[in-house]
């Protein structure tokens, strides 16, 4: 099993979720994060003070999937989250050694 971690633009969340559901992934965990990268931020001005904001709002999605479905998932996310502009985000794949569904105690792929 793998944990697919994707950082995307916030307004793309719904599309990505739909894309994942479309490829048979029925669970995911999302969180609001701030991203720093090539995409340049903006400056905010408050009276005399100017602040450069380089951390931009992003959404981080975590999806646990069976190893053989990783590519399908990556592709789904990529197509759904892509705008072609800087800041679209990244996908990282990390190995999962164990998975458990708390409610039933089921493990591994059954847990998803």
């Amino acid at each position, binding site marked *: 099993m793998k944990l697919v971690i994707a950082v995307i633009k916030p307004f793309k969340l719904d599309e990505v979720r739909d894309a994942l559901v479309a490829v048979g992934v029925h669970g995911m965990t999302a969180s609001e994060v701030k991203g720093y990268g090539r995409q340049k931020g903006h400056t*905010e*001005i*408050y*009276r*005399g*003070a100017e*602040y450069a*904001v380089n951390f931009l709002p992003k959404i981080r999605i975590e999806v646990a999937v069976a190893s053989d479905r990783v590519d399908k998932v990556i592709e789904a996310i990529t197509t759904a989250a892509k705008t072609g502009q800087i800041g679209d985000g990244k996908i990282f794949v990390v190995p999962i050694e164990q998975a458990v569904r708390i409610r039933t105690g089921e493990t591994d792929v059954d847990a998803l």
Partner: protein
Amino acid sequence: MRNQLGETMSRQSTLGRIACAVAVLCTPTAAFAQASKIDAADTAWMMAASGLVLLMTIPGLALFYCGMVRKKNVLATMAQSVVCTGLCSILWFAFGYSLSFVGDGPWLGTFAHAFMRGTSVESTSAFAPTIPEVLFMFYQMTFAIITVALVAGSVADRMRFSAFFWFAAGWLVFVYVPIAHWVWGGGFLAKAGVLDFAGGTVVHLNAGVAGLVAAYVIGKRYGYGHENFSPYDLSMAVIGTGLLWVGWFGFNGGSALSAGSRAAFAIVTTHLAASMGALTWMFLEWWTRGKPSVLGMISGAVAGLGTITPASGFVLPWHGLIIGLIAGAMCFWACTWLKLRLGYDDSLDVFGVHGIGGATGTLLTGVFAVAALSAGPDAPGGSPGLIEGNARQALIQLYGIIATLLWSGVVTFIWLKVVGFLVPLRVSQQNEIEGLDLTQHGEALQ
């Protein structure tokens, strides 16, 4: 009879004196039955006006200020406004009012009306002959409260609560009370002819200078200049501005102390200055920074309101537009250029907005004053300004500005040193980083 009382009491304890208040008060058994020179309409307006001015501090100023600080200091900033309200009200009632408005010495009043002793339900003050004296005392109380609360803005984010408490108490007594007496209570500035309708010197310049001094004495916030201090929630500051704006009608309109044309003119002049101030700051920011910020608009509005305050009852509505324009420009310059040059850290720009605004407005009052507005039975001539050919008035105003500036600056500095000797003025760096809400008050926004 009041004198008699004074003598008979001079040998008694304060509590004894308070008791006397009752005595005196009770002599006219069926008080309300007697005929009274108190006017119901003026009383109705002044009760509403007093409420409006208190609304300016809680929640008005509390919101305006806490909306500009970081999340970790929101409650602590509000706490300053709340504690000022409680503390200053008691001190003002106890003796602040009497020292300011009772007795016509050049420097200070007397304790004659401490705790309102020696007054009855019939009593009125010479300054407001058509409303109960207790109401005049209360109306003036709301001014004292907001002036002290205004100062707090410059030391937000770092001053220790206990230190602020002591600072506020002493500042009210040693700085506000004397100046209020000088300008409004028949003191030497009043005698000199300084015009200050609702507090250009007493309230705004006074608070602004004290704020500047406090900012220097207490020092910059940790991280000032490189860390991001963006406000937690400007929507609160906008709400606060709305309440300040409307409350200001009680502040300036109420300063007419009666419900007539002068109050109405003051309100309209005030509103136009606020409107023009808001647009001026907005356009200047738009032009120099590329974007018109909401913070800019409300800062301009408050700048206009503070600046028109001393003039509101002496100038015409359309003068309000001109003064508002100047106010917006001056305060914008002070907050975005002067502040950076001088390099002090006045957290919420008490000096840049109220100090500069108060001084500017007081001066302009001497320029635009229209005699007809201040003319009355007791002063048939009214008070003309420079434009009406009375250049001297501008100088008198300058005199008032300098006197206020000096006293406020010097005494604030001394008092801060005294307080700092009793308790550290500033929280530890550790606490400053954690935030004042948690470290000073043991609570926080979730």
